[in-house]
């Protein structure tokens, strides 16, 4: 049978170019015994339906992946989310993770930082250093990345409402290391819309928040071209109880809102869209999850092409990070969680993720210990180097089940996005609670199935054992809050207060107008103005959002 002309065309123009730019990890991939592992398994006959719906990897609509060789070229980034207590403690954990073979950093900030409060703010009481690291000023950020070369490491920061401030601090630290902004690599989450429906670390109302986001898009395009300016996140929507199709629908609907806002602000879609990235959840429902990732890629490519008239291939590709499902972990028989995480991580890899965080076995009980973090990382390394699934591209393609599930999720998510559009868009649907109620209904239905025993959770409603002695937990030093406050006050006492006041009054004036706020925020952090001081000014001008508690 002769080769389809489109296949020859793909090999010549897509595959060979990619191989020239980025050779595969090994000259040959084979099974034990020598049989070669094919790069890409294809149907016996390539027809129009195949080309329209699946096509070759690295080609529209990207169902089979965004790279022509996927993990044969480069493995996904193994990026473990970490951060707790003080900057010095977290820096120690990052150095440990890098030494163990993690390939990207992922910073967890504590809740006061995420919500724009300094550690000595009354609102921060009890929360300092708990779920992440406390960052009040550039001084903390300098400690956080001490001895970590920011020209080599890529850093993901889970920061949303005050993303501009933390990004500015990162840029300032890089400059102090002699690394120009143009060289830094990483991602800021910067996805405020999902905070209103899940996760909850909003500060300002939706509209001024979108202005901050488009300011970041614009500034980063010129200043930090290798930095992903947003990570549009379904992860937390899923954790809050959404189904797979709802996760995709609400995430891509949020994505549409950001793209539209940027276009409305005068930006060129083919300039900023390549810096958009996504973040999804991987649950234990292995096959549905693989289909979900494939459906998301295809649906987003169509949206970008048809709705936003994007032309450049990089604008159409949905690149994503995955984290295994925290809400699936049980406090009972915690070693079982290692197996859950393995299934979930496998789903992410079979679904073509660009980077992956694997949860630790003890996270239903508290922050993970160093030992359990290492096992979580080893799980990825075993999938990468022992399972063989990374040696071929999109291995489940063509399975009747997978393709049907991919079609179904794409259709369900597309229909839900259509409903949101008809109801006035995602902001209107957040404001009237439509999205919150959809998620909550799914969460409640799931829990009712667990309660009735219809859905089995091993160790929780079946196969229970009398619990053994509790495992060792990571306990935070209760003095962390006090220590952090002392350090913050020392910064306030030694900085040039006049410079701080000047940056704040400039920021106040600009926030009331329409100028891009990023340059002013960068000046402010360089003067050691604190996160809380910057956010207080913005709170004054933009106002604050308050949760209505939809039930």
């Amino acid at each position: 049978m002769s080769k389809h002309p489109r296949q020859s065309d793909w090999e010549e123009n897509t595959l060979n170019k990619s191989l020239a730019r980025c050779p595969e990890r090994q000259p040959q991939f084979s099974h034990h015994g020598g049989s070669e592992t094919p790069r890409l398994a294809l149907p016996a006959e390539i027809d129009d339906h195949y080309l329209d719906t699946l096509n070759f990897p690295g080609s529209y609509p990207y169902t089979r992946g965004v790279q022509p060789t996927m993990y044969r070229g480069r493995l996904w980034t193994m990026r473990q989310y970490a951060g707790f207590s003080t900057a010095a403690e977290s820096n120690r954990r990052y150095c440990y993770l890098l030494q163990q073979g993690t390939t990207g950093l992922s910073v967890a900030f504590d809740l006061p930082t995420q919500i724009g409060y300094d550690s000595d703010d009354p609102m921060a009481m009890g929360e300092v250093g708990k779920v992440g690291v406390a960052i009040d000023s550039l001084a903390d950020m300098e400690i956080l990345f001490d001895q970590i070369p920011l020209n080599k490491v890529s850093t993901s920061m889970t920061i949303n409402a005050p993303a501009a401030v933390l990004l500015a601090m990162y840029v300032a630290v890089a400059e102090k290391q002699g690394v120009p902004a143009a060289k830094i690599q990483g991602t800021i989450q910067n996805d405020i819309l999902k905070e209103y429906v899940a996760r909850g670390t909003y500060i300002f109302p939706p509209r001024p928040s979108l202005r901050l986001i488009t300011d970041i898009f614009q500034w980063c395009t010129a200043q930090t071209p290798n930095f992903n300016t947003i990570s549009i996140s379904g992860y937390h929507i899923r954790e809050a109880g959404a189904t797979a199709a709802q996760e995709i629908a609400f995430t891509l609907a949020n994505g549409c809102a950001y793209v539209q806002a940027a276009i409305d602000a005068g930006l060129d879609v083919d300039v900023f869209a390549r810096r958009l990235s996504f973040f999804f959840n991987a649950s234990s429902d292995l096959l549905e999850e693989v289909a979900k990732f494939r459906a998301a890629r295809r649906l987003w490519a169509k949206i970008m092409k048809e709705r936003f008239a994007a032309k450049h291939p990089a604008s159409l590709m949905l690149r994503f990070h995955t984290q295994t499902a925290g809400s699936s972990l049980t406090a009972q028989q915690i070693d079982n969680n290692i197996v859950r995480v393995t299934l979930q991580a496998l789903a992410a890899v079979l679904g073509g993720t660009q980077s992956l965080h694997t949860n630790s076995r003890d996270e239903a009980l508290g922050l993970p210990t160093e030992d359990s973090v290492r096992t979580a990382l080893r799980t990825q390394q075993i999938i990468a180097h022992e399972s063989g699934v990374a040696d071929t591209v999109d291995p489940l393609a063509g399975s009747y089940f997978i393709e049907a599930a991919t079609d179904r999720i794409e259709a369900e998510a597309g229909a839900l996005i259509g409903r949101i559009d008809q109801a006035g868009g995602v902001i209107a649907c957040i404001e009237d609670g439509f999205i919150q109620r959809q998620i909550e209904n799914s969460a409640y239905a799931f829990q009712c199935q667990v309660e009735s025993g219809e859905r089995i959770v091993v160790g929780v409603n079946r196969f229970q054992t009398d619990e053994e002695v509790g495992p060792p937990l990571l306990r935070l030093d209760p003095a962390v809050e006090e220590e952090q406050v002392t350090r913050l006050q020392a910064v306030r006492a030694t900085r040039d207060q006049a410079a701080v006041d000047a940056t704040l009054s400039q920021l106040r004036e600009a926030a009331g107008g329409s100028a891009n706020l990023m340059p002013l925020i960068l000046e402010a952090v360089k003067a050691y103005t604190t996160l809380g001081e910057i956010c207080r000014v913005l709170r004054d001008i933009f106002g604050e959002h308050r949760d209505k508690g939809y039930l």
Partner: protein
Amino acid sequence: MTYTTQKNRVLIGKAGLDGHDRGAKVIARALRDHGFEVIYTGIRRTPEEIAAAAIQEDVAAIGLSSLSGAHLRLFPAVVEALRRAGAGDIRVLGGGVIPAEDIPLLQEAGIIEIFTPGTPLERIIAAFTEACASHRSGRSL
């Protein structure tokens, strides 16, 4: 002795900065399905706001949820705020990611029961039923 209402009336509260309210909402829904009147505060309330809402809504019991590790500061602060407002008879229960060794500390501070992950809803509903009954009968804590 104060007689409040025939129907069991409770408030589910999220204190502090933690935004994880899947569990809180599931419990609110389950209580509602079992005949309770339920008020949900929404996320990110201060202990004082939760106490004030509970008093204003005339509830018999409060269920607090925290997954961020701030429970040792926040749960007792709600009890304190209730007592200061003369509403120390409102029962306070709590749940979330709470290490076993913290449970006695919270009980000493006046939180009558703590639920950890995996607790069957049935048990939680029974505890709220009991809390409301003891509140109605005016039994002291």
